[in-house]
């Protein structure tokens, strides 16, 4: 049963990683607009970084 000493912390660690990922996604506003997120996948921009993170010359020309 000594294996439990490793397995249980491993299970907890994985669980905590999941929780941390959830809290991070919550904090970064990924639950703010669920409908919009579903539609945004249809954009066919090759660059999927948000506009504000792109270098200036990458912005769509006016």
């Amino acid at each position, binding site marked *: *049963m000594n294996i439990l000493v490793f397995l249980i912390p491993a299970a907890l660690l994985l*669980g905590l990683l999941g929780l941390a990922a959830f809290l991070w996604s919550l904090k970064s506003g990924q639950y*703010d607009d669920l409908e919009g997120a579903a*539609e945004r996948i249809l954009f066919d921009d090759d660059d999927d970084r948000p*506009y*504000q993170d792109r270098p200036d010359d990458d*912005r769509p020309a006016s």
Partner: protein
Amino acid sequence: MSHAAEAMLDPTRPDPGLFVRDAPGGRAQLDLVVQDMHCAGCLRKVERGLYELPGVEYARANLSTKRVAVRWDPRKLKAGAIVARLAEVGFTAVPFDSRLASALDETEMKSLLRAMGVAGFAAANVMLVSVSVWSGLVTDMDETTRAFFHWVSALIALPAVAYAGQPFFRSALKALRAGTMNMDVPIALAVILATSMSLVQTIVNARHVYFDASVTLLFFLLIGRYLDMQARARACSAAQNLLGLRATAATVIGPDGAQRSVAVESIEPGMRLAIAAGARIPADGEILTGTSDIDTSLVTGESLPEAVKPGSAVYAGTLNVGAPLTMRVTKRDDDTLLAEIVRLMESAEQGRARYVRIADRAARFYSPAVHIMAFATMILWFWLGAHWETALTHAIAVLIITCPCALGLAVPVVQVVATGRLIRQGVFVKAADGLERLAQADTIVFDKTGTLTLGRPQLVNGDDIAPVDLALAVALARLSRHPLARALAEAGNGIAAMDLTDVNEVPGMGMEAQLGTAAIRLGNADFAGAHASTAQHAGPELWLRRGAGDPVCFRFADTLRPDARATIDALKRKGFAIELLSGDREPAVRAAAHALGVAEWRAAARPAEKIARLEELARAGRKVLMIGDGLNDAPALRAAHVSISPADAADVSQTAADFIFQGARLAPVIETIDVALKSRRLVFENFGLALAYNAVAVPLAVAGFVTPLVAAIAMSSSSITVIGNAMRLSRRKAAEARP
């Protein structure tokens, strides 16, 4: 016409500069409502369009709330340019006053979600350990391993309960301080007792611990609470958008004659204001220059516009339908109509507060019953000669098994499904307990103007007018923005344009033009040289005169909503008593009541009289549903047991009402009542299910057969049954949609 289109035509839009907030780094931030965003393409157009402006650093459209947040460098760009840019790419943007958004704030939602995440993590991991222990109990797990597993559970569960249980602990504490009971009291008690007993059991190395029960309980209940809050937040943000779209600014005339746009809140007595034709009057005051007609329907419920001239008093919220005016703001003293309405609303508040939600009413009986039962179990076992520790364990098992997990979900889940179904129909549920109160209603009191009617004039004698006259009048009317002219133009949709020359609009009188050699005049009776109409007509009129010919009369009336009669009939068939309570004059109200087949009606009712009638009905034991839109209805909407407003109602009324419906049809009212009744039935069914489950589980707990495994199975299955039952509300709808 959509709200967005209306907003574009409205010359009185506030200056977006008034709503700009300061963002960190010397940036400016603005929130806009863009009601006509519907798809990925719209999102992209909006965001791209904004990023193309120099100086814009952040633009994010939110499709759920239909709002756009923009942050930019104020040195490079003015706020007006942003709205103009969106108009260029085809969207009407209206600045959104972020102060409106305070009702249900984001942080509360997020902290609830965080608590849910923590509880979910703990529930999954404790359950992982617990399942091993349960299978170990019937196989070969040795005592050391079991103790180790119990300590692991304790390590996860204790911090999780301390963190995720806070919403319930706080609410329970608040209820106890106020000397009342709510569902959170038994929840908090069961969770705390189960956790602390399990901790003791772990320390003494006993066989059973209930950590899994306490965390899964919290997880399920937090899901219920989050769903409830999200549905309400969604309805609230939609309602706030509606108010934001109608926000108006006032045009102040300075001492030097310069005009500038200011927010309505910053108007002070003594200021001079310019009121454009078609604009709402932003404050109480008196007319300085100009003559015009004022549409007071939203304030008094009267459908005939009232003529005003210099010196006349005008009230905030009324509509200037004639010519431009200037007015002076007077002090809002106590004898204005608005002050009376505000006073009445404050006193009407009390009736509503007396209502206790179904879940809390259930808690009043449920909590003491459960606590007495647990106590009795302990006494019973002690009396039977058990060790006090065993007796206490069984008592706590009773508390855990009766912990109202299913009861806690019974109401919110139904509420969420019902709210979602209503939002798809264009009905927003604003009050948390609105559906419960609506299900009790047995009498419906309608306002007339703007509620049963559309609140805008329509041509009624189009068939009696020679086509050539109609065509001429329509051609002329298309060139004016006066509401009657617009109604006439609408009636003549599709009629070819005419070659009119020398078109001239005389403010407050009408339009004149030349057709060939003949002079054409369209306007009021004096302007067209006609004597007042001989026939008694309860609505506004326009007269057309061609050269020296006889003037032709165009009659307008505020017409009923297209399905008003059908809706009233359907409501009567459902057994509701219907009444009409209007501030309009008697002939108009009598005509409407007759057309709708409503026997009980009252005309020229002032706000106080409306309340008096509602109180009279309440004393007779009736539960009244009030449906109204005007400022004069606001106190009545507040005083009634439950209330509904159309989306184009006065702001104050929308705030006072429990439900808001959109569109020109009245049918959403029936749908809302149906959903409310079905919801109530489902809630009671859910209570029945939860009680049935208790009837089976409680004897087991009293007898001491409830192990943590039994508790976990019973709790999950009862919760899932309750959720499944609530879901039937949306499934039935899907079946109805496909006839």
